[in-house]
C-alpha cells in the first residue's frame, strides 16, 4: 500500500488513480473536520469538495517534510473559513437535518454530546476534534492552526472543562 507521501507525489504528476485513493483516505475525514468547524452538513460537504480540488491542484507545492494529514487539514481549515466569510453567518446553529426528531434512547446521549460540542467556541472545538478524532499531537495541531503549542494546550484545557461540565 502506498504511503500518503507517495500518493501526493503521484498526484503531483497528475496520476488520477493516486488522487482517487487519496480522496478515499481523506475526503470523509476532511468533511468531519469541516463539520466540526461549521456545524452545517451542506457547508461541510462544500468545504470537503473545495479542499480535495485544492489538493489536486496544489500537490506540486506540498513540502515533503510535512505530514500529509496536517497539510490537508490546513487547507480544509482555510476553505471552511472562506465559506464562513462567504456565507457571512455570524452565529451558526447546528444543522437541524442531523438531529433526529424522535431519537432512540441510545441516540440521546450522542445528541447531548453534539450539543456540548456546539457550545464550545470554534477554536476549542477544532483542538478537541484534531486530538480525539484525528489523533494528532499537540505539535501537529499547532502546525495546522498556525498557533503556539502552549495555545493548543490552553484551548484543550478550557474545552475539556466545559465539556466535562456539560456532560455531567
Amino acid at each position, binding site marked *: 500500500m502506498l504511503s500518503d507521501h507517495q500518493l501526493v507525489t503521484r498526484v503531483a*504528476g*497528475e496520476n488520477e488513480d493516486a488522487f482517487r485513493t487519496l480522496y478515499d483516505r481523506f475526503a470523509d475525514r476532511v*468533511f*468531519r473536520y469541516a463539520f466540526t468547524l461549521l456545524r452545517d452538513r451542506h457547508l461541510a460537504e462544500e468545504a470537503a*469538495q473545495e479542499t480535495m480540488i485544492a489538493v489536486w491542484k496544489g500537490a506540486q507545492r506540498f513540502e515533503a517534510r510535512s505530514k500529509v494529514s496536517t497539510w490537508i487539514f490546513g487547507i480544509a481549515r482555510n476553505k471552511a473559513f472562506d465559506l464562513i466569510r462567504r456565507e457571512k453567518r455570524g452565529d451558526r446553529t447546528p444543522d437541524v437535518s*442531523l438531529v433526529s426528531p424522535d431519537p432512540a434512547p441510545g441516540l440521546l446521549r450522542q445528541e447531548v454530546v453534539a450539543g456540548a460540542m456546539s457550545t464550545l467556541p470554534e477554536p476549542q472545538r477544532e483542538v478537541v476534534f484534531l486530538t*480525539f478524532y484525528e489523533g494528532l499531537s*499537540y505539535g501537529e495541531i499547532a502546525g495546522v492552526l498556525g498557533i503556539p503549542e502552549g495555545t493548543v494546550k490552553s484551548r484543550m484545557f478550557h474545552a*475539556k472543562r466545559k465539556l466535562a461540565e456539560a456532560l455531567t
Partner: protein
Amino acid sequence: MSSCGRIRELIPWYANGTLSSAESGEVSVHLAACGACREELAGILRLRAEVERELRSLPRLPDGVWKRVAVEAYGRPIAHLDVGSFFLGFSLGASVRRGAVPIHGDLKVLGQKIRLFNVEQEERI
C-alpha cells in the same frame, strides 16, 4: 515529581499516544503515584470515546461529491481512446474544463497509468 498541572496538560495527548517517549514516561511515572491524575485520564478517555462516537454518527460524505471533484479536477470527459491490454497500453482522452479542452495521453503498464502529456487548449467546441 512533576506537578499535576503539567501532567493534566499532557494527558489528552498521552491518551491519544502522540507524546514523545520522554513526556510519555514522565506522565506514566506521575500516574503511578497520583490517583487524582489517574481519574483525570479516565475522564479524558471517556470524553474521547463520546466525541468519537458523536463524529462517527455523522452521515458519510455523499458519493456525489467525488463526481464534482473529479469534473473540477480532470474536466468533463468528451472523448476517450484506449489501445493495448492490461500489461501495456496507451490511452488518449479529451475533456472540457472551465473553457479549456485539456487533452492527455497516458502510458499504461500493468494497470498503472503514467501521464505522458497534458495539453490544455482554449475551448472551441
